[in-house]
């Protein structure tokens, strides 16, 4: 099986499922929009995480009748809620939590990541300028930064020796999870720690624009 044989949904579920296993019971987690929001449904039994929405929810939950969309939205602007024991906080406090290292992990997508853990995920000059939102603070402040993304973009590597796009932050990424494998950012560069057995190491290397150290043993990411 190659990437071509997995459809988008399968790829996203594979990635979200693997990231879910990085989270510990009780962790406070901020999830970026898109793929990362799929992660909670893949959490192992007995692992419960507390979702922080940077617009001001500690313990964010799904839409309910109790909390109308007029008064409660998540960081994607969608109707949400606070779970029992949750809290609504103002933005200065929310980013105080984020910048102050009180968020155990943040999971978000990327346009590019490089060998030093530099991250580019907010701007393509001349094309896309949505604004960085809370991403720059999140990747600087969260205890652990996990990038969850497809390994390549239309066949072009997104994991590079050095990012070419404007950075979101320097040396901030701890772990990269793609449909091909799990890559840790270490002081000595990128280490492929786990692999999707549907791919060979050579295939992963080919799809990666940076040097990869291969862990031994190299377990399956599935």
């Amino acid at each position, binding site marked *: 099986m190659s990437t071509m044989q997995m459809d988008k949904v399968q790829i996203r579920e594979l990635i979200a499922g693997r990231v879910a296993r990085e989270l510990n019971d009780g962790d406070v987690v901020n999830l970026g929009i898109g793929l990362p929001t799929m992660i909670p449904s893949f959490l192992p039994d007995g692992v419960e995480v507390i979702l922080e929405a940077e617009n001001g929810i500690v313990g964010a939950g799904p839409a309910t009748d109790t909390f109308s969309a007029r008064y*409660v939205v998540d960081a994607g*602007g969608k109707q949400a809620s606070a779970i029992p024991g949750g809290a609504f906080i*103002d933005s200065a406090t929310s980013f105080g939590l984020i910048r102050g290292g009180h968020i155990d992990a943040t999971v978000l997508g990327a346009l590019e990541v490089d060998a030093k853990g530099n991250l580019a995920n907010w701007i393509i000059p001349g094309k896309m*300028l*949505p604004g960085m*939102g809370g991403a720059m603070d999140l990747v600087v402040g969260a205890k652990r930064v996990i990038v969850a993304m497809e390994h390549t973009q239309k066949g072009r590597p997104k994991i590079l020796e050095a990012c070419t796009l404007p950075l979101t*932050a320097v040396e901030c990424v701890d772990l990269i999870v793609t449909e091909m494998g799990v890559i840790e950012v270490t002081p000595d560069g990128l280490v492929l720690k786990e692999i999707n057995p549907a791919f060979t190491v050579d295939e992963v290397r080919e799809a990666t624009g940076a040097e990869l150290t291969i862990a031994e043993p190299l377990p399956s990411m599935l």
Partner: protein
Amino acid sequence: MARDKMIALAEAVAKVEDGMTVMIGGFMGCGNAHVLIDGLIEAGTKDLTLICNDGALPGYGVGKLVEQHRLRKLIASHVGLNPEVGRQMNAGELEVELVPQGTFAERIRSGGTGLGGVLTPTGIGTIVAEGKPVVEVDGKAFLLEKPLRADIALLSGYKVDPFGNIWYRGDTRTFQPVMAMAADTVIVEADQLIPLGAIPPEDVVTSGILVDHIVKGGDW
């Protein structure tokens, strides 16, 4: 203390003059001061510099001000959900200053609390740092980000008493407490008007001493 700060919507809107800098709280439209925004649209107020986290959505919240070309400049952290912002920006019709969301909150807080600015690690090594001083503290580099203030802040409160004490419902709170401190004039639209003292003093989020005027908010 039981001062009645209620004024009519038209009177409140008239306090926002063309060319002013205006803060509006909320996130993606949720918690925007919808009644006051509609008032501004109706009154034709223009050339505003808007300090708001985002451009909301087309036709919703501050998105209406964008659509109707009432803004000269937008200071925000995220404008991706309102394509009209990008269009006007590319057409040279709207100046946009993008600020990381945590820095955005803290710059406003700084402006309202008499601090000289914010020393933040956020943005170091990125284009956000361009042209800004870097201050080193104990060997670590921090960007010096300057305070933000406005002529007027337009807030949306859920429970508001006649003195202007505010309790925000859900996560409409967002940037509103810091904006209430960082503007020369503060107007709140109240979804519910409640008697003085009806919010327990521990649960008042924005004190009425920061609020100049109240208008009726409510259904929309």
